[in-house]
């Protein structure tokens, strides 16, 4: 891989980091750390975006990099931390699946994701296309994380990191989406988190806890 | 339609009216002899009728008009039936408008009026008799019809005279299907006419009686009509038996008075024989429980259907 240009190598490193981070999130049970990891993931994403912008000269990538930086590194983590402090949720309870088991499933998923990415990689014209597989696996891993967690907070973080994965996929497959879409997506994510904030307080004032097992009354099985 | 056909028609009815009581009397005589009793007079039934016709009729207060109409209807239908069955000659004007199915329908109508009349006063015996009569009827009727159908399949008509004519023309011997239906027919005859082993005309024992229970509330002329109708019914059934299984001596085809003159004594002989045979059967068999009757009639029905199937199989 030495013959690759530096930027390329850096990009691949970013991609690898992203994957590593989502694995870390998958295994992490401390909510605060989870949020920090999310922030880091955002930072890596922003870095990758910048790198790409610099190499391809796509100016709208600069904008999205800035967006990422503001939104996913600064604002959202701050908001989440604030919520955590206000609501006092620090630990997630034991996940539904043992961490080791989760890891194994995660590995399988990564393999699947890469096989999945093959045709896309073949199609895509970008030189970051090798990272598509990673993007897919980030998405799926986030999904897995949402499944295995019991606290609303960690589910949200999973949701956000899934969005990260999607974003990374967009970038690596086609240097990002059209501007209008990017803005829309960013807006939606922002609103989503705000809504979530409201939500947390509502849930909290009802159940004085964010444990999801309170939210299992509506069902058919008796 | 020649005059002689009409004569035959009227003659048949008249003979039936006249001979029915006598036949019953004869039957009773034979029974008495077979059972070593002193036989009652052959004319006893006539005397009974005369006596009844001269009594004052008593009718229950809550009897409806239907109760008074019923005897006439029952009697009338029986007379009409006598006109449909070719006991002497086959060229009967009435028959074109009433074939064997209609004949069975006629019997059914008589039964229906009788049972309704029995239920009308609303006594325990009446309804009980009606129920039992219908129980007998709903099995005997189809059996009879099946018996007739066997014959009508053989002669491809449901008109009794045609059947008789076809069977009387002789060339076919007693076919197995007819044998089956003959057995069935005898069982039906016994049941329909309230003879032993199904009913005992001699007693008024409520555990067993069927026909008598229905006419309990009747008196005088109404009772007379009912009794006479019963005798006619017996007579008719026997004649049906002759028409289906022993059509000998019946004037067939376009006949003149002479055949008719032959037919009358032939009928008399056959009646005598039949009476004796019935008496014999009644003597050697014992009255059965009411709830056994359906089995008895079920057998009859089964035999009739078997006859039909045998016919189809043999023809195939």
């Amino acid at each position, binding site marked *: 891989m030495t013959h690759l240009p530096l930027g390329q190598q850096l990009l691949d490193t970013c991609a690898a980091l992203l994957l590593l981070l989502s694995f870390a999130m998958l295994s992490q049970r401390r909510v605060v750390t989870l949020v920090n990891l999310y922030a880091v993931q955002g930072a890596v994403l922003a870095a990758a975006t910048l790198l790409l912008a610099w190499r391809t000269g796509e100016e709208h990538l600069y904008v999205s990099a800035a967006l990422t930086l503001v939104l996913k590194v600064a604002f959202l983590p701050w908001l989440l931390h604030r919520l955590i402090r206000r609501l006092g949720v620090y630990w997630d309870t034991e996940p539904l699946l043992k961490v080791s088991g989760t890891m194994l499933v995660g590995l399988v998923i990564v393999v*699947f994701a890469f096989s*999945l990415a093959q*045709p896309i990689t073949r199609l895509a014209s970008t030189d970051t296309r090798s990272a598509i597989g990673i993007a897919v696996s980030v998405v*799926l891993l986030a*999904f897995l994380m949402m*499944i*295995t*967690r*019991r606290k609303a907070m960690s589910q949200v973080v999973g949701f956000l990191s899934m969005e990260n994965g999607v974003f990374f996929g967009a970038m690596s497959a086609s240097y990002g989406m059209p501007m209008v879409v990017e803005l829309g997506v960013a807006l939606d994510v922002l609103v989503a988190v705000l809504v979530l904030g409201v939500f947390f307080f509502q849930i909290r004032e009802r159940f004085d806890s964010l444990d*999801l097992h309170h*939210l*299992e009354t509506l*069902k*058919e*099985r008796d | 339609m020649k005059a002689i056909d009409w004569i035959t028609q009227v003659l048949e009815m008249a003979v039936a009216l006249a001979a029915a009581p006598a036949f019953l009397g004869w039957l009773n005589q034979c029974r008495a002899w077979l059972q070593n009793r002193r036989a009652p007079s052959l004319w006893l039934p006539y005397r009974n009728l005369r006596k009844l*016709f001269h009594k*004052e*009729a*008593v*009718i*229950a*207060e*809550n009897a*409806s008009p*239907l109760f008074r109409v019923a005897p006439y*209807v029952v*009697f*009338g*239908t029986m007379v*009409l039936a006598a*006109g449909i069955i070719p006991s002497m000659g086959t060229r009967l004007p009435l028959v*074109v*408008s*009433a074939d064997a199915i209609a004949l069975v329908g006629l019997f059914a*109508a008589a039964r*229906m009026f009788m049972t309704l009349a029995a*239920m*009308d*006063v*609303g*006594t*325990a015996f009446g*309804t009980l008799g*009606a*129920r039992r009569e*219908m129980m007998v009827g709903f099995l005997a*009727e*189809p059996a009879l019809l099946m018996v007739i*159908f066997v014959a009508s399949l053989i002669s*491809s*008509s*449901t008109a009794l005279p*045609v059947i008789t004519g076809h069977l009387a023309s002789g060339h076919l011997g007693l076919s197995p299907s007819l044998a089956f239906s003959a057995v069935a027919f005898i069982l039906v005859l016994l049941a329909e006419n309230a003879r032993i082993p199904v009913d005992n005309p001699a007693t008024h024992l*409520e555990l067993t009686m069927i026909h008598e229970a229905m006419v*309990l509330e009747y008196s005088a002329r109404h009772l007379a*009509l009912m009794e006479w109708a019963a005798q006619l019914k017996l007579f008719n059934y026997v004649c049906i038996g002759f028409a289906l299984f022993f059509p000998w001596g019946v004037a067939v085809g376009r006949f003149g008075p002479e055949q008719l003159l032959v037919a009358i004594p032939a009928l008399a002989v056959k009646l005598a024989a039949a009476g004796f045979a019935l008496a014999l059967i009644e003597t050697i068999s014992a009255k059965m429980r009411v709830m056994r009757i359906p089995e008895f009639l079920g057998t009859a*029905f089964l035999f009739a*259907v078997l006859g*039909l199937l045998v016919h*189809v199989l043999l023809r195939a």
Partner: protein
Amino acid sequence: MLWLPHPVITTSPSLLTGCVALLCGWVLVGLAGLLRPGSVRFAGRTLFTLGAVLGLGLAALAGASLLSGGIERLTLPVGLPELPLHLRLDPLSSLFLLLLGASSFGISVFAGGYFREGEGALPGLLCLQYHLFLASMGGVLLANDAYGFLVAWEVMALSSYFLVTTQHRIPEIRRAGFLYLLMAHVGALCLLLCFGVLQGGSWLFTFHAMRAAHLSPGWAAVAFLLALVGFGAKAGLVPLHVWLPEAHPAAPSPVSALMSGVMLKTAVYGMLRVGLDLLGRPVWWWGLAPLILGLFTVFYGVLFAAVQTDMKRLLAYSSVENIGIVFAGIGLTIVFAGSGMKAVAALALLATLYHCLNHSFMKSLLFLGTGSVLHATGERNLGRLGGLIHRMPWVAWLTLIGTLAIAGLPPLNGFVSEWLLLQSFLFAGRLPHPFVNLLIPMGMALLVLAAALAGYVMVKFYGIIFLGQPREASLVRAHDCGLLERFGLLWLALGCLALGLFPLQVIRALGAVTGQLIGAVVPQGSPHWWLLAPVPARPVSYGPLVFLTATVAVVLLTALVVRLTYRQRVRRGPAWDCGFGAVTARMQDTAEGFGQPIRHLFQPFFEIERELPEPADREPRYRIAIRERIWRLIYEPISGAVGRLANTAARVQQGRISVYLLYSFATLLLLLAVALIS
């Protein structure tokens, strides 16, 4: 291309237009009921009588078209975009329209006198539902495309459902209504699929196109089967009949009469339309299904009728029996027609159609009679009736005619159709299928047995309601029915007589139908207008008029002779009863008692639970409840299975969000894998 437009020959559809106008008239009459929904005099008396007159008009038009034997077509610009409403008036439909009009006339007149205050729903609403019901039945008979047919069909079911649930406060009636609508809907779905097959890939849903469509034998059989299920469910073919004995008694009596007398016939019409008209030349073995099912239904129905204690339920089961006869007739027709024996097929079809006419008159008459009894006494239970012939002679004597007719006694109408059917059974001749050759005598035996049992049932029905002593003190206050009701009953009774006495004329009229469906008419073997001789080359004949005159003559003669020779007067006295003094009403046979022999003989058919009195009981009471095994054998398992499935399905929805996410995740991965592979 979506539905291609297809040419519509409209041969000056004067009669058809008239019929449509009359149907619209019915709808309008119904809507008029909403003007003053509360008033019995307006909505009840006036409008119902008006509707009756319309019915008579319909009968007249239909009769005219039947005699002319022509075919009229018409299209109205409603319905699906490329499928305007096609209407067609041909012999078959006009026969059933005649049936509808004629019997609805009597029923509507009766209904005009029947509905009163406190009948549950508002008279205006009843009027609307009732006339919608009538109009929709007319629509079913006139429709010439699948869509119009099904719409009318379901409107029929819907309006009758609302009529059935008039007294919706009673839980049993709600249950009955639910069962009825459910069965009706399932049946309609089957019909829908049947038409889906019939249209055979040409997206024309007109019957015209369906006749032209060429189906593979397999598909044709499927279509026939679906039709049998669909129409059988509406007609009450065992085992799809379960709704019938519930729904008919639940409805107000005129409605029961309409449902039993006319609505069931629309199902028969549909069966004939699909089986013999749309499917073209039927295959002989199709006929076995309706034949066997029909025969079973006949027997089953009459058995259960014999053990009923509720007079309307008894009649409902008797309807099941008669529908069985009709379907057996249809089956026979198809077997013969499929084997190329046109003449006999025509005879069987003739018997079937004749029986439809008869049954609609007889059964309407009987149901209306029970309606009057119900009004006069407020009792439906046979165990609490009796002796009404003294209190309500009109109803009693008119009902007697219906009773004798439905018991199949000559010279009334019930006998004629049974006679014809038996002839067609008898002279089936040689079918090319040995198995069927053996089946036919058995069928005949079963039919005859059932006919005899019907006599039993009717004696029970009439004897217990009208004869004997009143079983309740209150019955003394029973009153005879009003003028309109009498007229309605009289009309139907006369119908029974006429159908019984002039079979030849009826058969001439029916010739057009047999000609249309079979391509053969039943020949008339004798030169006389009063003599019926339908079987070619066989000396078989029946002359009801002569029969009647002979009987009457003999009876009158007897009466005359007796009167002349007889001198004593008649005295009224207490019932003798073998000299037993205290005869009370409770000593009479009850309905249960009268049914006892049947119950005893055919034990296996019934599911009986008894409550016998103890020897030491102060006031001994005897209770018996009879259920159909069909419930336990078929329906309860089905509903149980669905319930279990539902419980299983409920496991899916188990409230935990992670699991829901897991579902999405698994689905995603699965589909992605599929997408990769394909």
